[in-house]
């Protein structure tokens, strides 16, 4: 949005209607400084994918808080140290950002003409410090995702839990066919059950570019595409994306979502819709996300190789590189150390 590739469509989709159709959180993904540039399509709301067969085999219960989560991890490790209870990705920064989001926090944002960067805020520090403890105790593994090794472990059942966006239900279906019927979905375990949050990993949006020769038609189309029940039904059926952001998706959810055989008959749409509703905070992503990702990937690899001792130290190193890159790319409207 910041790079001048999109044009504002407030004329045809004002903020009030936008919030009514997509929820207030979506403004963080489709608007800057009050200018709306597009509409969100599918939701990347986080869900916990777990192997029911492994849970049953080792007598684990589905955790609802992070404390219960780590108790189950300990139980699992004791029962079978060769299997992985959970693996966090080396890299894939939007997952880590999603973890912080799910704890109700953020590390950067945009407000009123300025970019804000603050990685060492209390929520982020808490998340990273806790994960660091789990890594140090050997309860959770770190590995690279999105490669044949990783899919292999999901397919063969050497990993018990994965937290990812709801769209992952499709990825799992295609890449781990041998594990059909063994996975289930749940809301990610909460850091504070009194204040539930959820984060988003991925998802998609449709925007109107500056090259558009007929912005009015494009804007109307983009709005219809992502909010009209007929369109939402098609989107779900043809793209197999389980959950759309639009609030009007609930009008068709009963029609399109039934028991899912891959997930052992569970009505995943219900769980995922609930997961999406829990996304009650938002922020705007920086314009240098691929660099943000690169910086984190290298730091995580260094940590996995033993070059960084404390996991939480990664946050400040990451922040330094992000700030440097923002400056290198010419962003002088940068405020560090605080968040709006």
């Amino acid at each position, binding site marked *: 949005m910041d*790079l*001048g*590739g999109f044009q504002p469509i407030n004329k045809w989709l004002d903020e009030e209607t936008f919030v009514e159709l997509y929820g207030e959180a979506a403004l963080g993904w489709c608007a800057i400084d009050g200018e709306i540039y597009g509409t969100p399509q599918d939701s990347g709301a986080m869900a916990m994918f777990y192997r029911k067969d492994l849970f049953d085999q080792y007598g684990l219960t589905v955790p609802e808080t992070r404390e219960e989560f780590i108790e189950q991890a300990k139980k699992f490790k004791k029962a079978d140290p060769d299997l992985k209870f959970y693996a966090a990705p080396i890299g894939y920064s939007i997952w880590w950002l999603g973890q912080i989001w799910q704890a109700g926090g953020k590390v950067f944002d945009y407000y009123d003409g300025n970019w804000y960067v603050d990685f060492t805020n209390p929520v982020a520090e808490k998340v990273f410090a806790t994960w660091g403890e789990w890594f140090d105790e050997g309860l959770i593994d770190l590995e690279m995702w999105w490669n044949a090794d990783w899919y292999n472990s999901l397919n063969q059942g050497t990993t018990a839990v994965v937290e990812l966006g709801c769209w992952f239900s499709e990825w799992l279906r295609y890449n781990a066919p041998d594990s059909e019927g063994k996975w289930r979905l749940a809301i990610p375990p909460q850091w504070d059950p009194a204040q539930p949050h959820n984060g988003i990993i991925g998802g998609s949006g449709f925007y109107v570019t500056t090259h558009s020769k007929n912005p009015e038609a494009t804007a109307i189309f983009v709005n219809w595409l992502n909010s009209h029940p007929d369109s939402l039904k098609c989107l779900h059926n043809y793209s197999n994306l389980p959950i759309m952001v639009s609030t009007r998706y609930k009008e068709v959810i009963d029609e399109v979502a039934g028991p899912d055989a891959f997930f052992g008959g569970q009505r995943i749409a219900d769980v995922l819709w609930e997961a999406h509703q829990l996304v009650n905070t938002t922020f705007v992503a920086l314009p240098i996300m*691929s*660099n943000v990702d690169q910086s984190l990937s290298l730091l995580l690899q260094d940590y996995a190789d033993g070059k960084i001792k404390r996991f939480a130290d990664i946050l400040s190193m990451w922040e330094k590189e992000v700030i440097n890159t923002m400056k290198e790319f010419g962003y002088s409207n940068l405020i560090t150390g605080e968040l709006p």
Partner: protein
Amino acid sequence: MKSEMTMGRMRNKKKMGKKMIASIKAYLFLAPFLLFFSAMVIYPISLGVKLSLYGQRGARMWYIGFQNFVTIFQDAKFWESFRIPLFLLTIQVPLLLFCALLVAFLYERMQKHRGAFYRFIYYLPNTIPGIVTGLIWSYIFSDSMSPFRSVIDSLGFSGIKILTRQHLPLILLVIILWAFTGYTAFVIYSSLISIPKEFSEQAQLDGATFWQIAFKVKIPLLKGVIITLFIFNAIGAIQVFNEPWMLGALVVLPSNYTPAMYIYRSAFSEGRFTYAAAMGLILAFITFLFSLYILRRAAKQMLTGESR
């Protein structure tokens, strides 16, 4: 006298006419190649040159002259990325040439059909596209699926990971040697068999062994081929991309692992197309300078060596 001069002029005109027809014919034959060459090589390069003179942010571009090049000269990341090409240049290329030479000499010693069979199967790796090669090798070296994992574990090395960033240069070495030794050996072999037999027969009569003949007699005569192959491999080393890129899916690599990877990332991950275009030109220029240097040195050596 006048008639002589006009006769002379007419003869010259005829010569020129013949020359013109000859060159027109030549260009007609070259036309298909020239067409594709200008469309696929000259046009993109000139576009790249134009792009490199612009600054860019997202969808906006503005003319900044040579500013990109100034920035690149100060970009530590770009220059650090030459470490891997340097490693390949100093270790992999000589090693490849040495192995290929040995293999070529072996080809010469083999009987016709056996030799042809080995030449064929050793050439096969070169026919597989680089990306596919990198992909399959990444499976072979991956820690969860490698067929060698069980062998390595049983030898007592079960704790050691095969695919790590420290091991990567060695892994690249293995992959590139596997892919190109056959082809290089084949090229050397073709030159080898064109060396007149009298040289080796003479040396044999003087009492030299096969390997002595190989190194003292034949290799000096192969200098031209070896230099050419060295340049080809050096260009490949400086611009290496396929193999490290595919392996980068299994182990995190910095964006500037090789110059080509840095250029690719700058363009397609970071969207800095003009910056990447400028870097690409500089890389091409460095490659050109290097080839020129090697050729000059080789030419000098050949001239001074020709002092029989």
